């Protein structure tokens, strides 16, 4: 039974919602616009909104001067590597908890969640020290490991809630037909779970890409990803608005696009299935 909606009411809500949406989005829009201005136009008084000489110069300057591609590559490796590694470790764990639950499954899940609550700053020095001793400081390997570990609980939880939705009878039927455990997981479970796994990968890639505590504290020059690259603009360099904007736009564009696809997963992933 759909409620009757008067066009006038719909138009009113449309206007209010669009206005608020644009206000919230404005900082991002402004950053993107500024990235196409010259430095002089970027700080012109009064500010120019759309009518300026559009230029791509900032993008090439940022790339040439700071070797942007290297930071981008570090981000891709760190976010991608930690996500893939995490999923590889989490799929078997989530599978066993979803399909062979024991009395302790709930406790284990909650305990995994609790490790996510550990404030990073509380264990900063031990990790820093371990990284120095093992030669992991400022390496991509080190960050892949740390980001995998901080996101592992979320990955396990998301996969678990997705796997729970797959009817166990299908797996039993496969087992009756003589499928081995490996075949069962590879040929029966995985195809059905691919949407769930894809969502998990997507959200965790975003979380790892934007992570800004460990990436800032455990990297210097070599392994620094985009989060740390942008942070370097907090020096007076940040007053070159057009270049700051170009660098920022390049750092957030891939994730904004991925983010649009992951709205639903965001809720499930970040509330540990408590809100669906």
């Amino acid at each position: 039974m759909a409620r009757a909606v008067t066009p006038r009411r719909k138009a009113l809500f449309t206007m209010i919602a669009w206005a608020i949406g644009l206000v919230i989005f404005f900082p991002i829009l402004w950053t993107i616009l500024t990235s196409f201005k010259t430095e002089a136009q970027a700080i012109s008084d009064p500010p120019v909104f759309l009518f300026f000489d559009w230029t791509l110069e900032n993008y090439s300057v940022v790339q040439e001067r700071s070797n942007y591609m290297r930071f981008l590559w570090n981000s891709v490796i760190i976010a991608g590597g930690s996500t893939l590694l995490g999923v590889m470790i989490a799929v078997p764990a989530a599978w066993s908890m979803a399909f062979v639950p024991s009395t302790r499954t709930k406790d284990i899940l909650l305990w995994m969640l609790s490790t996510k609550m550990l404030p990073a700053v509380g264990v900063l020095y031990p990790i820093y020290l371990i990284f120095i001793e093992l030669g992991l400081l400022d390496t991509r390997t080190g960050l892949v490991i740390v980001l995998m570990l901080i996101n592992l609980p979320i990955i396990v939880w998301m996969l678990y809630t997705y796997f729970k939705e797959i009817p166990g009878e299908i797996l039993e039927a496969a087992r009756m037909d003589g499928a081995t455990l490996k075949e069962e997981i590879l040929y029966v479970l995985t195809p059905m779970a691919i949407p769930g796994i894809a969502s998990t990968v997507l959200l965790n890639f975003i979380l790892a890409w934007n992570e800004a505590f460990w990436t800032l504290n455990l990297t210097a020059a070599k392994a620094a990803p985009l989060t740390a690259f942008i942070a370097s603009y907090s020096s007076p360099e940040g007053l070159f608005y057009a270049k700051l904007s170009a660098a920022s736009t390049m750092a957030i564009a891939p994730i904004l696009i991925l983010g649009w696809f992951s709205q639903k997963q965001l809720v499930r992933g970040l509330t540990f299935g408590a809100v669906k």
Partner: protein
Amino acid sequence: MATKASRSAARLMMAPAVILLMGWMLVPLVLTVFFSFKKYLPLRGDRWQNGLDWVGFDNYVRFVSSSSFWPAVQTTLIIVLGVLIITVSLGVLLALLLDQPMWGQGIVRILVIAPFFVMPTVSALVWKNMFMDPNNGLFAHLWQFFGAEPVSWLSEASLPSIILIVSWQWLPFATLILLTAIQSLDSEQLEAAEMDGAPILSRFGHIVLPHLGRAITIVILIQTIFLLSVFAEIFVTTGGAFGSRTLTYLIFQRVLESQNVGLGSAGGVYAIILANIVAIFLMRIVGKNLDT
């Protein structure tokens, strides 16, 4: 039907994740607790290999009695509460609005959610330079346009500025979760109330808000855990100056900037205890919802 064989296989498959997380939790935790009872100043030649002096609860006492402790606690509380109040109240309103029929709903939702996907260092720097800069920031232009004196936001009003930046980042999260919860609300119940002539405010107070109660609790708990450890936003805007030093930032400075590891570790233990108090409530709610 779990057989014995599949049970042991299950245990084996769970092992890597459990062992890794166990190590990730226990090793640094034990080291932090260990260092918190030691005098450990790497810059003055202390090496863990040579053994460290045991100082008992000295670091714990000193961390709490230092003149920066209570201001840091206060700053932390102001930021966490400020962001929670803004994001939850605006989040409820926005979620209600986005649930209404309108043209281009999908696009509006994307506009509202977008800030969540912006990395913290980018949003902090964009706000700091392009909006809050007292000379060239948009706010300065806006103030001048109305004939007011531009404000140097991050030094004169550091906390409201940081609260604004962090709220902008977290409002999408609150909105999205509350919207999901609203959409699961039985619309027939609302229509019945509407037909019975219940005014809009009482419909909101008696049907919508109670229904949202759990989602709001979850938003508050999850955000609190993340907000207690806000870092990058302070790191790139004020660097902890102008009264914006939170507990997290204070510990970071003790540990990495002044390299007083013992003292910083004692602070770390306090932070862990604090986070766990919040976590216990969250885990209860999540646990209740979990049927294995």
